[in-house]
């Protein structure tokens, strides 16, 4: 197994604070909800180590990164240490001043703003009143200043019937080049509000059909690494392979669903190094105390996650007798953990057989 000498990219939860409490938020009540923020100096010292490790980019997130009053100083530290950056934001705290600053750095690869609907009704259903207009204004400010902006749409029960209008708003009205989608997953606050926000099997089937059609209509300008669009693409591929009786698909049949630990690391708001923000319960060390290079190369927990790709799906009772084993990756370890308490297990949420048994249907590819 070849592992890079150092991570290429590091996710940084620079704050534990957020001005919103979205009902499906994956952060609050998770292991990443640490109740404290590191002082600026700690981050600035750590950026020097990231520079020495030749890390190429950091992804600033939280909770809400723009809650940090010193975000400009942090970004100046990132620029000084030869990195580029992305920011994941709810978009409601973006001012003219900060947008102008971001654009002026020349190092910002994107500010990803969450937009969950085409109207206040659908967006604000999970994000709180007034936040659609604030987030849309944030996007317009970023666009005005020439700061790169992207959008993530999280699909849930309140917006699943709004996807057509969301696509029209984002791709036609405000003319984004593309946007990405996922769905409310059983993490953080979503665990307590699952009934209200998580898609039912029927809604999931509907979302897959709709997104696949919109993906075609807008020439691939809608993307996904998780959620209904990603599931639709993956599952159609698996079904096709099964019907063609392919022996196996390359890189499938084992727990290969996540390549994160081969190229990425993350840091919680309290400075604890973790494999991924969504797996904040696995503590690998602490910044400015433990050597990042040493953690990256030798931490047994990180190596355990890297080696999961050698675990055959046929080893799991959960997968016994499944026709899709040679075409399946087991999907996200973080979701497997929140559902089952075990990372080295296929994620039940991403199981095609289970989805079909529960009455789910795959999109008709000919009807796109």
């Amino acid at each position, binding site marked *: 197994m*070849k592992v890079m000498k150092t991570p290429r990219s590091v996710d940084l939860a620079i704050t534990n604070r957020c001005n919103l409490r979205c009902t499906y938020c994956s952060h609050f009540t998770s292991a990443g909800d640490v109740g404290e923020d590191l002082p600026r100096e700690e981050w600035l010292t750590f950026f020097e180590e990231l520079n020495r490790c030749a890390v190429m980019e950091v992804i600033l997130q939280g909770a809400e990164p723009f809650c940090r009053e010193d975000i400009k100083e942090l970004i100046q530290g990132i620029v000084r240490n030869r990195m580029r950056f992305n920011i994941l934001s709810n978009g409601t705290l973006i001012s003219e001043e900060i947008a102008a600053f971001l654009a002026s750095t020349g190092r910002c690869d994107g500010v990803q703003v969450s937009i969950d609907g085409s109207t206040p009704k659908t967006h604000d259903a999970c994000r709180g009143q007034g936040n659609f207009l604030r987030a849309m204004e944030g996007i317009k400010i970023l666009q005005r200043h020439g700061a790169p902006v992207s959008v993530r749409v999280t699909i849930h029960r309140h917006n699943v019937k709004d996807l057509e209008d969301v696509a029209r708003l984002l791709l036609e009205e405000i003319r984004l080049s593309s946007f990405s989608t996922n769905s409310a997953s059983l993490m953080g606050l979503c665990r307590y509000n699952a009934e209200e926000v998580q898609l039912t099997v029927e809604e999931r089937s509907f979302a897959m059909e709709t997104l696949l059609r919109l993906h075609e209509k807008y020439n691939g300008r809608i993307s996904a690494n998780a959620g209904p669009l990603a599931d639709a693409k993956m599952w159609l591929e698996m079904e096709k392979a099964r019907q063609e009786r392919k022996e196996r698909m390359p890189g499938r049949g084992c727990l290969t669903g996540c390549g994160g630990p081969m190229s990425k690391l993350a840091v919680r708001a309290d400075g604890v190094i973790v494999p991924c923000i969504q797996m904040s319960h696995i503590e690998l060390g602490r910044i400015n105390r433990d050597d990042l290079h040493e953690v990256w190369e030798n931490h047994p927990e990180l190596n355990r996650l890297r080696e999961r790709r050698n675990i055959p799906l046929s080893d799991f009772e959960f997968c016994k007798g499944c026709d899709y084993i040679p075409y399946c990756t087991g999907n996200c370890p973080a979701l497997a953990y929140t559902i089952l308490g075990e990372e080295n297990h296929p994620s039940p949420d991403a199981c095609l057989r289970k989805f079909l048994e529960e009455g789910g249907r795959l999109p008709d590819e000919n009807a796109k």
Partner: protein
Amino acid sequence: MPDTPKPIANSLVVLREEFDDWAILFDPATGNAFGLNPVGVFVWKRLDGHHTIKDILNELRKSCEKVPEKVEDHLKEFIQDLIEKGFAEQESREDLSP
């Protein structure tokens, strides 16, 4: 390109050694990246404003087996390419000063 200059790497550019002796040169100002094989890495590490092209050639000949006949041309082309990409400069500033 003459032999005497001492090319120097752009200090903003990141040498990212990834697998074995292969590496990426990454320019954070543009986001551009440029793959380097182990010989490229060897050369890059000597673009320090102290080595002339001849110095680098001599070290390369000492360190590597089966050095091709046209190595000098290849080396000059490689360094010129780095200069054109903004990853290196022709001479160290020290040498340019009166």
